[in-house]
């Protein structure tokens, strides 16, 4: 039972990271972005490519004590965050920016659904459909509490997620850019009126959302595997988390992500792991029925 709880938190941490990007694009650009899943996938593949790039040095650098990776992995993670942010900006520049100028929010949703499918298949075309791994070494789970065993990688992942969420909180509340983002989410016209460069805010939204998605993708790749549909399979939990927490609210996305992770994990003994995604969906439907504004949301 406690083990399921711990597994749920690990899964929830990854869902949270992805859902933050989803909820940020929703609150600032006002549309449900179906490409978020592919940003997660893109991040994982970008890290794989970076690692392949300095394969020689990776051998010499060795690994951190207990973890399955060393410094190259962290550098690859940073590069993947940049690359995925860049990918998000490219999609915005190619498609969403143009559509926003003449079209409704819902046209963006169709376009993002199409872009998601095209990206997923482009990745499958480029890298092949077979799953890949960051490391093939077997990691021994260490007991951290009576009845709970986690691998060092998983502990590292929880730590980094907590640090990133804290950094995001600092960014949104203490920096000018973060405040500008919140102002734009609240009221774009008014934000523009007081001199906020809304286009810059939009660009930063994609960058931050894409970078966090990349982290989720790399962690998902570390703990499970890297395959072209990994992000798409995560998309429903991401949406469920964003809605449950209150769409548009980044803290809600974190809370929702953890709750969805827990719900999925705790339901496994009853419904089996095949139906994990369905559990997230049912939680989402329940939230929409009884509290459509979400746990931390203010308006419907």
């Amino acid at each position: 039972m406690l083990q399921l709880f711990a597994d749920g938190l690990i899964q929830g941490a990854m869902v949270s990271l992805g859902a933050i990007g989803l909820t940020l694009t929703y609150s600032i650009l006002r549309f449900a972005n179906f490409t978020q899943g592919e940003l997660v996938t893109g991040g994982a593949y970008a890290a794989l490519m970076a690692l392949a790039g300095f394969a020689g040095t990776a051998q010499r650098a060795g690994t951190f004590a207990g973890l399955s990776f060393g410094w190259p992995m962290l550098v690859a993670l940073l590069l993947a965050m940049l690359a995925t942010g860049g990918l998000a900006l490219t999609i915005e520049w190619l498609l969403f920016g143009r559509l926003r100028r003449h079209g409704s929010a819902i046209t963006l949703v169709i376009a993002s659904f199409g872009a998601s499918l095209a990206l997923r298949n482009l990745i499958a075309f480029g890298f092949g459909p077979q799953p890949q791994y960051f490391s093939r070494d077997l990691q021994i789970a260490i007991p951290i509490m009576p009845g709970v065993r986690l691998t060092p990688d998983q502990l590292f992942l929880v730590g980094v997620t907590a640090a990133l969420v804290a950094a995001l909180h600092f960014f949104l509340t203490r920096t000018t850019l973060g405040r500008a983002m919140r102002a734009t989410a609240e009221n774009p016209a008014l934000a523009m009126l007081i001199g906020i460069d809304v286009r810059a805010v939009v660009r930063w939204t994609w960058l931050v959302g894409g970078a966090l998605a990349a982290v989720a993708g790399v962690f998902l790749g570390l703990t499970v595997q890297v395959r072209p549909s990994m992000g798409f399979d995560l998309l429903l939990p991401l949406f469920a988390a964003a809605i449950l927490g209150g769409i548009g609210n980044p803290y809600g996305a974190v809370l929702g992500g953890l709750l969805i992770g827990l719900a999925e994990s705790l339901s496994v003994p009853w419904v089996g792991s095949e139906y994990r995604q369905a559990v997230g969906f049912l939680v989402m439907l329940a939230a929409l029925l009884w509290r459509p504004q979400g746990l931390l949301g203010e308006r419907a």
Partner: protein
Amino acid sequence: MDGYIAYGVFFLTVASIYALVCLGLNLQWGATGLFNVGVAGFFAVGAYATAILTCPDFPGQVGGFSLPVPVGWLGALLAGGLAALLVGLPTLRLRDDYLAISTFGIAIVIQLVALNFQPLTGGALGINFIPRPLAAWFSDAGRYGIFYLAVVAAIVSAAYWALERLVRSPWGRVLRAIREDEAAAAALGKSPAVFRLQAFVLGSMLMGLAGGLHASFYGFISPADFQPILTFQAWTMLVLGGSGNNRGALVGAVAVWALWSASGALLHAVLPADLQVRGAALQIVLIGVVLAAALLFRPRGLIGEEPIVSRHARL
């Protein structure tokens, strides 16, 4: 020569089944502005309903009712509507993105059930030996193909006729009013949530029926038939043909299905054998590009929406 005719009949049958899906989607999106990202799910529910109702009894398999095929199709119609009711009830009173996300979700859940709930759906292997209507009356496969095409075409024509009547009726005008300005429609005493739910359920019923026609046509269904790509194809058809116009939905279905078949054949001929599997991915990218281009450069589609749908109104 016979080969070409047989292929033409096959092509038109599949295109007509897609056309029925597009008509349903056009009622939801074109007429009412409802965003359904789960077309594949409603189609799948209809296909499985037909299969379960009409199939003979197999050991270890739920269903096997051996009912007549039209009853199976009726079941498909109802199953599509029921699934729509399930997602529509909680979400149709909220912002339109919630419906998009929920329909996306139900399609994935239906896919999961199809893959994993073996006693009902046959799991990944699917359901085989789905009866074809009146197959015993025909000795010649080619003639049967033409007969089935006629049946599908008749159903699509009936749906087209009924939808044209509906869109031009006062009910259809309320849908458009809600799409254009919900507050104004509500001020006139029309409940947006109720009308939306009606349009959504009706559209999904057509998708379910199309799924049933698909199941009886191929005689075999498996979860692989109901991937998100199906949703995406239906959207591309409607957007390219012209959403808001039933004729646009029909034209788009034929045009995009032709593009899809032709690009598939081309990739098959051009790519070496070891790249064939990846070529399928490229085909999907192509459709994605077509949709994005249509949205950017010709958002009203090949045939746009008519500005006036009422017989009584004049400019």
